């Protein structure tokens, strides 16, 4: 046994010495390989952690949201609808939600304004998300002005800044008292933005949603599971940008494979002949090629994955930030909790290290079985 290990170590010594002869080429190969793994692993870490976080925090989302559709778009929902829905068996509570958007023409940013009974605010006061506070440099006690539905500016005192850690949920939120919001936004009494429901038995959600549509054909119920599924479908690999990243990675791998599979150079074939002539077996040659693929791909895989972890969880995906910000003026600054899916890492390993190593070995198969006397006859 010890000599088997020593033999493999000798072969690794030889392989690395051979690889280091073309330092530039193999160094570039290693760099590109690491970069591809880095990008793929970054996407993987980021999307998984974000989806997992979404799933954990949105667990508390309303069980059913009922919207109303008028003229093919959303419209405020009459409060009588709430009374009707309350009559459906299994519905425990129905609450109207008041919320809407506000466009800040000075900062060119969109805010979401909501009412919140659960967070009591003194008259004329609002609570704002950390994103708005950061962008407008507005802090607790400051006065901030918004233009209402009548075109007149109204002043609000900032009573509270929503916690920084919840930016991923609340960066753009403005919380207001109900009567002030109706006055500000022009939403008449008797109407709400949508309704949220509490249900006795979560198994009945779909049945209840069906009953609501039957009773109120212009309503559209969205159940919690659908909200969660929306965020599970986020960053799906078919999504525009991700497919570009994936195709770039696949193409790069095809080029690698092409380079390897296009066969060995005459020089490499001659070297294999020499090694066979001096007493290397076919299996030794294949081991050499195995290590050639393995040393490059394993170290690149590890380096790329480690760098990706640092990128996503230590620098908060600094390289992805511009993409995520997109055209938003207001964006959340957040640090993701490192939820990691071992299955994904394993998949990445099998999609990078294995094919690379295999494409290194396969073309040398024929060369490894050539007669050693080719060296004599050359």
């Amino acid at each position: 046994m010890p000599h088997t290990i020593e033999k493999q170590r000798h072969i690794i010594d030889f392989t690395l010495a051979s690889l280091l002869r073309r330092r530039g080429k193999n160094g570039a190969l290693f760099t590109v390989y690491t970069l591809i793994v880095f990008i793929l692993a970054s996407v993987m870490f980021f999307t998984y952690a974000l989806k997992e976080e979404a799933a954990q925090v949105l667990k508390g989302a309303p069980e059913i949201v009922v919207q109303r559709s008028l003229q093919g778009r959303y419209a405020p929902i009459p409060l009588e609808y709430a009374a009707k829905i309350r009559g459906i068996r299994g519905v425990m509570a129905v609450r109207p939600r008041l919320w809407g958007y506000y466009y800040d023409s000075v900062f060119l940013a969109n805010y979401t304004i909501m009412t919140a009974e659960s967070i009591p605010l003194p008259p004329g006061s609002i609570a704002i998300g950390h994103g708005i506070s950061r962008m407008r440099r507005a802090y607790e006690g400051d006065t901030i002005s918004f233009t209402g539905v009548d075109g007149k500016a109204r002043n609000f005192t900032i009573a509270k800044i929503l916690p920084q850690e919840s930016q991923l949920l609340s960066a753009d939120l403005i919380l207001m008292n109900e009567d002030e919001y109706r006055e500000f936004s022009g939403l008449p009494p008797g109407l709400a933005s949508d309704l949220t429901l509490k249900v006795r038995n979560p198994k009945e959600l779909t049945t209840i949603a069906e009953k609501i549509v039957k009773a109120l054909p212009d309503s559209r119920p969205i159940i919690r599971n659908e909200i969660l599924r929306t965020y599970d479908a986020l960053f799906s690999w078919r999504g525009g940008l991700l497919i570009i990243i994936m195709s770039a990675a696949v193409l790069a791998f095809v080029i690698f494979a092409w380079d390897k599979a296009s066969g060995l150079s005459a020089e490499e074939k001659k070297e294999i002949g020499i090694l066979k002539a001096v007493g290397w077996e076919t299996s030794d040659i294949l081991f050499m090629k195995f290590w050639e693929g393995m040393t490059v791909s394993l170290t690149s895989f590890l380096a790329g994955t480690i760098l990706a972890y640092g990128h996503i969880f230590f620098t908060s995906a600094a390289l992805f930030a511009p993409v995520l910000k997109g055209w938003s003026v207001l964006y959340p600054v957040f640090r993701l909790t490192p939820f990691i899916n071992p299955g994904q890492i394993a998949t990445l390993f099998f999609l990078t290290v294995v094919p690379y190593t295999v494409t290194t070995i396969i073309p040398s198969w024929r060369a490894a079985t050539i007669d050693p006397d080719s060296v004599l006859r050359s």
Partner: protein
Amino acid sequence: MIKVTQISKVYNAGRPNEFTAVREVSLTVNLGEVTVLKGPSGSGKTTLLGMLGCMVRPTSGRISLSHREITSLPERFLTQIRRETFGFIFQQFNLIKGLTALENVMAPAYPTGEKFATLRSRALETLALFNLAHKAAAKVEWLSGGEAQRVAIARALINNPAIIIADEPTAHLDTKLSHEFMAIIRQLKDDGKTILIASHDPIVYDSELMTSRIELRDGSVVTAGSLP
């Protein structure tokens, strides 16, 4: 002792470019002898040498090494015999470019799994034997012709083979280096190695070191016999 009986080698059998490199050759090489295979290029010297050294399988005939039939052995065993019994010195030296002299010398011993430290010191000793200790870390392409050949010889000796096989060893050497090469052969002979050299260089085949000579022409033995 190597004994070959009626061996032939046909290349590209059954195709229009079929040709017979070696035709029904029988001969015996005794241990401790220095044998030269003489003949013009294309006479089948290299092919015969390849078959004697277990590199090429004969198309027909039998080869036995120390009374052991080896023609029918599977490739793995043949490789093992080749590695343990024979040391090869090629016409073009066939060193692996880009690697150091030391790495080239160690390469044939890698499949044995010998401990690195012992192997390395043996390789350095072998290089020192040929006054190449100071070139151990030099890449082989930076060596002179004579140095490259001595590295090739050191490589042939690393597995301590009983038989040394050299194919046209002086073809790329000038007269002075050719004489130096023969001096090394003398040293190896004195160490008790069996030596087989294919050559059409008079410095080699007329050397007084030769104990037997086999002359080939068109793949057949013309004359064979011990030298006085």
